[in-house]
């Protein structure tokens, strides 16, 4: 028996390690974006996010010595700063492109004719020579700049509140919220009544209707785009929030009815029949008994619908349009990918702004989401 027990614990270790690896692989992409959204533009574009915590080294293009010449102890001296704005330090430096990192910081280098050049660790350089440098071609300094890892909230401030840089991600955030909340709430009640009828009322054609709902569950909404756009234009809704809300309501209904009906069918028959015997009407049974009891299913659907409407791109593009004032977050991201494909500080931050809300909802409401998934996939 010892043998088997030993094998079991070895197997257990293999399982644990492979799960750790799998989870790490699944988190890795998101973590990359998350870390990137807090890095400065400079650091994002010069090093991978996985090295965000280590010292950043960057080869600085040649800087030509310049500055006021002054006479000091009989020598002509030019002083200045290599990095006047950043707090980078010099790791190594050189004076030719062939050997850009030839000297250590602080070394005094003889350039010939009695001219010396030194670059200190902080980036301060000092060129001195026995004759005036006026009219001469001054040497160039190549350097390896080292900056400490730097993290900032600047990207988020930029993206959310600045009017120029990220062109309205804040506005899009509000737009998405405006689309998602009504589109989540409105279908619930309509679907709940229908689900009650399909679950607890006897009438001819009920089975057929349930089958029809299941059929509509998988109809690709791609088919609906043009006919509905035509319809919206014909009745005067045109492109706008009302159109998106209606479209999301229509597209969300099959899942809502299906989920809620499956849940309501499982409610105990006794309660409902007792209430009816006591003289309750169907309307009362529904509002007083079935609706409160169905809360878990309602929550499941609400979360589904919220995630779906928040993350949707196609319906919003088609029914809301691509104007700057009405663009939703997903649409904005697609635009940014096109126009600012290289500016990862803006892209990463905008993407994270759009991801944050659904992910928060996901972690808070995961229980309901899982329950909905289990009930919602057609058996």
């Amino acid at each position, binding site marked *: 028996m010892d043998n088997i027990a030993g094998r079991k614990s070895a197997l257990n270790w293999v399982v644990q390690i492979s799960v750790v690896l799998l989870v790490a692989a699944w988190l890795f992409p998101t973590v990359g974006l998350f870390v990137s959204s807090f890095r400065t533009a400079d650091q*994002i574009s010069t090093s991978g996010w996985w090295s965000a915590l280590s010292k950043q080294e960057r080869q600085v293009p040649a800087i030509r010595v310049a500055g006021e010449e002054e006479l000091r102890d009989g020598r002509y001296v030019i002083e200045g700063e290599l990095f006047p704005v950043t707090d980078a330090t010099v790791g190594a430096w050189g004076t030719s492109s062939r050997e850009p990192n030839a000297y250590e910081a602080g070394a005094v280098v003889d350039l010939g004719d009695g001219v010396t050049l030194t670059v200190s660790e902080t980036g301060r350089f000092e060129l001195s020579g026995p004759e005036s440098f006026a009219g001469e071609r001054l040497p160039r300094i190549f350097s390896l700049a080292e900056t400490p890892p730097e993290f900032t909230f600047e990207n988020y401030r930029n993206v959310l509140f600045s009017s120029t840089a990220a062109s309205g991600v804040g506005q899009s955030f509000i737009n998405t919220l405006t689309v998602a909340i009504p589109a989540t709430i409105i279908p619930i009640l309509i679907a709940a009544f229908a689900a009650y009828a399909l679950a607890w009322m006897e009438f001819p054609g009920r089975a057929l209707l*349930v089958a029809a709902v*299941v059929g509509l569950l*998988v109809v690709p909404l791609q088919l*609906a785009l*043009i006919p509905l756009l035509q319809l919206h234009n014909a009745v005067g809704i045109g492109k706008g929030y009302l159109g998106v809300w209606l479209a999301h309501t229509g597209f969300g209904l099959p899942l809502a009815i299906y989920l809620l009906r499956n849940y309501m069918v499982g409610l105990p028959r006794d309660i409902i029949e007792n209430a009816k015997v006591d003289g309750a009407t169907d309307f009362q049974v529904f509002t007083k008994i079935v609706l409160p009891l169905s809360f878990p299913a309602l929550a499941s659907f609400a979360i589904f619908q919220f995630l779906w409407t928040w993350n949707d791109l196609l319906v919003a593009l088609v029914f809301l349009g691509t104007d700057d004032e009405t663009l939703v977050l997903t649409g904005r991201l697609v635009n940014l990918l096109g126009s600012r494909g290289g500016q*990862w500080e803006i*892209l990463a931050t905008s993407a994270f702004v759009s991801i944050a809300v659904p*992910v928060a909802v996901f972690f808070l409401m995961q229980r309901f989401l899982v329950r909905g998934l289990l009930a919602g996939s057609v058996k």
Partner: protein
Amino acid sequence: MNPALQGLLTIIVGVSGCLAYFYFSNQFLDKVLYPARGPNAGRNINRANQIRPWLFLFPALFALGLYLAYPVFATLWLSLTDRDQGGAFVGLANYRQMMSEPKFWEAMRNNMLWLIVVPAAATALGLLIAQLTDRIRWGSIAKSLVFMPMAISFVGASVIWKLIYDTRPADQDQIGVMNAVWLAFEGGVGSVLFLQVLPAIILLAFAAVVAWVGWLFVRPLLSSAHSQHWALMPLRLVVAGGALWLIWMSLSSLFDLATADIPYGQPQTWLTLPYWNSFFLMVVLIWIQTGFAMVILSAALRGVPEETIEAAIVDGANPLEIFFKIKVPQIMGTIVVVWTTITLVVLKVFDIVLAMTNGQWETQVLANYMYDKLFRSFDWGVGSASAMVIMLLVLPILIWNVRNVRKEMR
């Protein structure tokens, strides 16, 4: 009006309107139309109860009919007409034009690849993770972390993965993980092992699995016992054909792999590599959908009766045998459900392709092709025709689902 205010107002109007509709229509039915008093009280109650379900159903049926059922037929009609000729009926001209476009066939080919790779990979990975996390203590945390991408939009996921596929010129540090890893390979023994031998083994294993599955489907055709259902014949033939194609594909890529001249040391622009870039896009969807498969399959695995497993252990089965011979056959129904659900997602995949490549470099898929036709070249005829192709591909799953539900209802 401020859109946010309009939204609030719509919620109030929508919800109270719904409630008012249901309340007053019921009142009207009970008090005015068929009052439950007077000489006909009994008959009136019966009549009211016959009508009431339809009162409850009406708003939903109306919305379903208008927003999902009607568009199917309207799109079918649009695909048979020409907008430039004022909506005149043109028969199958749009379909013919679509068939003559190479971009359409590119989209079809890619969609078929997506349809095979994504559901298979997501279901297999989901099953693997579900099984592995089943018995460990922190399994639920692991599961919720793998499940998390489900909450991320396809566009958000595209941004996440675009950072991974990012390319910088050769003289700069790479900021995309793919290229950073790629540049670590220099063409030594390790590189050959990882980039040629390992993929070759995976391809061979894949071909073997496909051959086995194909054989499972074909075997009943060859056997003399004619007990199987005739309707399954075409399905079996299709699966067999698909399997042959897949085997051919993997063997030919095996050959390509062996003869490939791998450009070591040069950063690659992954999303512009024809053929391979489709797979890089698929990875995004697999990453998202694995969590879904895992959650459903994990619940199904929990539902496998303990006794069957115990009996297998007593009979001396090893863990692998328990998994493949006891658990998997018992949850086959759920696996099929997960597979078809992911297939539906794949058929509609649009956002990922639009955001990452917009169908350039031979990555076009049907849904994006359709969007292109409808909203960029405003060719409603061909656009609707391609939408009908998507519908046609969905149709078998639709029929299957409806049949299952009808069976269940009986």
